[in-house]
């Protein structure tokens, strides 16, 4: 199976900007033990460059979510290393991980996960408040303007549309100027128009604001907004596509499926 790679892995990101935002080496995650042991991630090596918008794609159960959890310091690896910049996050304690998440990582969730009792503004600035840091009003203004939230700042989540809520969540993820933002199926709960809107905002934050975004998705259209798509299957990197179009991503996925057809069922069962 180690040869069933559709597109050869090229280290495009190391060539592009030189600086790496996130790095994984031999990253492995297993659940259970003995007979019931499941390998969700199996020795993954992957790099993500600064200032890029990368999509991680794969069929459900392929291990893409597990990869993101490990890279973001939300879960602990069974083996291997993950780095945020030069910091090795595998092996950090809860306190250090909490600080890391607060100061250097942003999250965008599928279900927005805004606090219902706070206004949009409070939700956006929450990470800074938790850190006891001052709000950079200039940066806040820039974010709000870029995301088109000027008229919505004093509204509560229940008074916002799904697309608006997700834009607030993006602003929240970016407010602390993190090294990297992880987005987990950010369009999963949105209609296609709002989804497209959110995706272009994500792309704008990379292009115009210079942020680094890693997005997990199973939607080829969404993945096409990224600069680069990393394909993952059965817990391993299965290839990648640079400057993807929806058609290219779809073709890549199809190729993955047809090549791995006989084992796809197992992979689905094995996935976390």
């Amino acid at each position, binding site marked *: 199976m180690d040869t069933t790679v559709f597109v050869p892995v090229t280290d495009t990101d190391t060539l592009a900007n030189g600086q790496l935002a996130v790095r994984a080496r031999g990253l492995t995650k297993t659940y259970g033990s003995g007979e019931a042991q499941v390998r969700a991630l199996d020795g993954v090596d992957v790099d993500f460059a600064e200032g890029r918008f990368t999509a991680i794609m794969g069929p459900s159960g392929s291990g893409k979510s597990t990869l993101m959890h490990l890279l973001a310091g*939300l879960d602990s690896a069974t083996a291997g290393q993950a780095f945020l910049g030069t910091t090795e996050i595998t092996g950090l304690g809860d306190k250090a991980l909490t*600080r890391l998440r607060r*100061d250097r990582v942003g*999250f965008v969730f599928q279900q927005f996960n805004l606090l219902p009792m706070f206004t949009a503004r409070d939700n956006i600035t929450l990470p800074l408040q*938790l850190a006891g840091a001052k709000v950079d009003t200039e940066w806040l203004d820039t974010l709000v303007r870029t995301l088109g939230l000027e008229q919505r700042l004093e509204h509560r989540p229940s008074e916002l549309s799904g697309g608006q809520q997700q834009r607030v969540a993006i602003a929240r993820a970016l407010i602390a100027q993190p090294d990297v933002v992880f987005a987990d199926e950010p369009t999963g709960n949105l209609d296609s128009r709002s989804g497209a809107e959110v995706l272009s905002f994500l792309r704008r934050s990379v292009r115009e604001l210079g942020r680094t975004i890693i997005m997990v998705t199973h939607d080829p259209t969404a993945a096409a907004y990224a600069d680069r798509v990393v394909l993952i299957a059965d817990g391993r990197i299965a290839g990648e596509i640079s400057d993807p179009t929806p058609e290219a991503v779809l073709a890549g996925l199809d190729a993955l499926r047809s090549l791995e057809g006989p084992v796809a069922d197992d992979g689905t069962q094995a996935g976390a």
Partner: protein
Amino acid sequence: MLQITLAQMRRSSGRLAAAGIAIVIGTAFVAATLLASGVITRTAYDSIAARYADADLVVGATWEDPITDVTALGDVDGVAAVAPMGALDIELAAGSRSVYQSAIATADERLMPLQTTAGSMPAHEGEIALPADVADRLGLEVGEQVDLTRYQSTDDDWQQVTEQPTVVGLLDDPYGAYSRTGGAAVIDADTFATWVAEDMGADPGATEVAVALAPGAAERAVQAALAQVVGGTTDLADARWVVPIDERAAHVAASLTGGEDLMFLIFVLTFASIALVVAGLVIANTFQVLVAQRARTLALLRCVGANKAQVGRSVLTEAAILGAISSAGGVLLGMLLGQVALWVAHAMDVSVPLPDAIAVTWQVVVIPFVVGTLVTVGAALVPARVATRVAPLAALRPTDAPSASRRAGRVRLVLSLLAAVVGFGLLAVGAVLGTVAQDPTFGLLAGIAGGAISFVGVAVGAVFWLPRVAALAGRLVGASGATARLASANTLRNPRRTAATSTALLIGVTLVAMMSTGAASARTSLTEALDEQFPVDVLVSSTTYDDDGTAVPLSDELRAGIVGTDGVAAISAVAKVGLETPDLVQTEDGQLETAGAASGEPWTIEVSGVDPQAARAVLRNPDVFDGLAPGTILLGTSFAGQMSLEEGDSLVLRGPDGSASFTVAVSETDPYATFVAWDDLASLAGEPPVTEVYVGLTDSADAASVVAAVQDVVSDSGASAQVLGIAVERAEYDRVIDTMLAIVLGLLAVAVVIALIGVANTLSLSVIERRKESATLRAIGLSKAQLRGMLAIEGLLIAGVGALLGIALGLAYGWAGSAAALGVMGDVTLSVPWRDVTLVLAIALVAGLVASVAPARTALKASPVEALAAE
């Protein structure tokens, strides 16, 4: 459906257990109350039955037609011994000590409830057996003589007869037969009969005769035979009767405690019902949340065909099962508490003989069980209705569980406002009636009604205003940082739940604060009233008079002895001397007229001389001597009126050494005051004789023991003087108030404890609901300590707001109640019982903190990854 209910209960067992504790405590309270009431009745019964010792039957007659021939009863076949029941009042004295004492006659040992611990029972005239503690108090031992005073009836009066019997035995009262009357001495039966006859003027006969049966005698047959001899029946209601001892004892016990134990029962059950109401609030809250959490499951049930009634019934069944289990646990706990209390009482050797074990009647088991179950089911009614409202469609919606909280109804708002307005209005009317109109009866009635109505309004309307107060408090707290802001925002997310939780605490705290305030105000007002009327702690006054009617002065040694007594701060001497008023004469019809304008006898007034400085230092209320200075006479309103004198007038007084003119100052406090300065009196009547001494006690002194010590000093000096200890009365009032307050607060504490369990319950339920949100917060950088802090602040807010508002309300109620009840005693001083109030607040806050510990642990178990999980 039952299986589904049970399965759901298993899943929520932790949450239900926490709510169940509230019901357990509430029902345990009710069960323990019923048990205690039973013990009181039982104790009374036992002590009455004890008087009959081992008698089997008792023969009774009326006062008008007593049994005169007791010996005839003894002759009846099967009767082994008879003894007329009755007691005689005598006075015993030895040295300077004396006691009043009941005495009974010797009897067959089967009919004698008292036992000798030393010596023997008296056999002849001139012998007496005394209760061991009485002999101890009088300093007597077996073989010594005691002075006995009894009464002999004369033609139109009684005269005292003194005897000097020898103490031949010391007595113990193992069954408490005479514990209600302070024990009983024993005199031989013949002497007893003679003395009773002399006291009453003639042999009074017996109204009750205890009968012991011979071994093997048939009780029924002897009962019938006795009834025939006395010409009575076997029915207690008749004029003459013969009944078994238990029947008679039960009858007397019922008549003795009839009102008392019922009052006790109602009193304590009031508090038990408060505890149950609070428990009901906690239960209602729990079920609201359970229903909200299970909305998906309930909707699914509706989808697969369960109808509304079935869903609602499922919730009620769950409540019934929870209620039944918790109530059963409560009954067991109550019985355990009752038994432990008895053991403790036995270990402490209380003077009242108590039964060894609690008497478990069906009421003790059934009443708390039924009430506890009903309260639980009743509390689940609203959540059950909410459950029926869950639409089947909700199962298909991926959104968050629909909240159980609706907007509180307009009807509720109007009703609660109305109740609050009317109630507080009535409360104000009560306070006005009590203070201005001086009508404590109607004042109290209006006050109680107003208090109850307004409190219902406040509690029912809590959902409207309590969250706002919490918001305000939250805003204050929230300024301190993000964690606090999160916490305060959280408490407002579910206003209904926050309101219900805080209200549960509010009820308990309000009542605690009300009782403390009432007690503090009552104590201050009573003390002030006492100080005003009896400004002296202890008054020692001479009671012997010379032939010419002047009091014999108290000796210097006696005064020195009093000053030297422990606990005495200072004394002030008072001299009373009769002085003539040359300007006034008393006419034949008793009126006072100006001398010269009318003819009559010279008028003499008894004037008290005090040293104003010394007297002020000793008095509780020094204002009494405000107007007193050299050259003035302080006249009470009564005397001033009699002599037609007003403030500023002058009055000439003449004594053996001369005369002087005094300016009149009128005293409002004591209508019979006639005070002049000591030196003024001395210049008119020579060195005045000290006939009274004001004694001031130190603040820390135990009034009762100091007064007793002063009494001893007076007795030992041989002087004939009266010791009047107002301080004892004052201390007694304090003790009564303190004891009652302690009991009431102890009872209310149960409600507070239940409410605090409710706070913990609410917090843990919120934490479960907010699992995903906690994970999100953790993911975006909330540290574990911050999460813990957030929940701690939530606990503090819920508990603190409930406690603070409760204290405020309690103060208002306590003050209004005091004004209504105590207004008639004069100015009501509204006191704040700072100590109690601070304690309640501290307990509530600490409990709020503690309540957040377990929920925080649950919340921390949520991994940040859960934030990413799609529902």
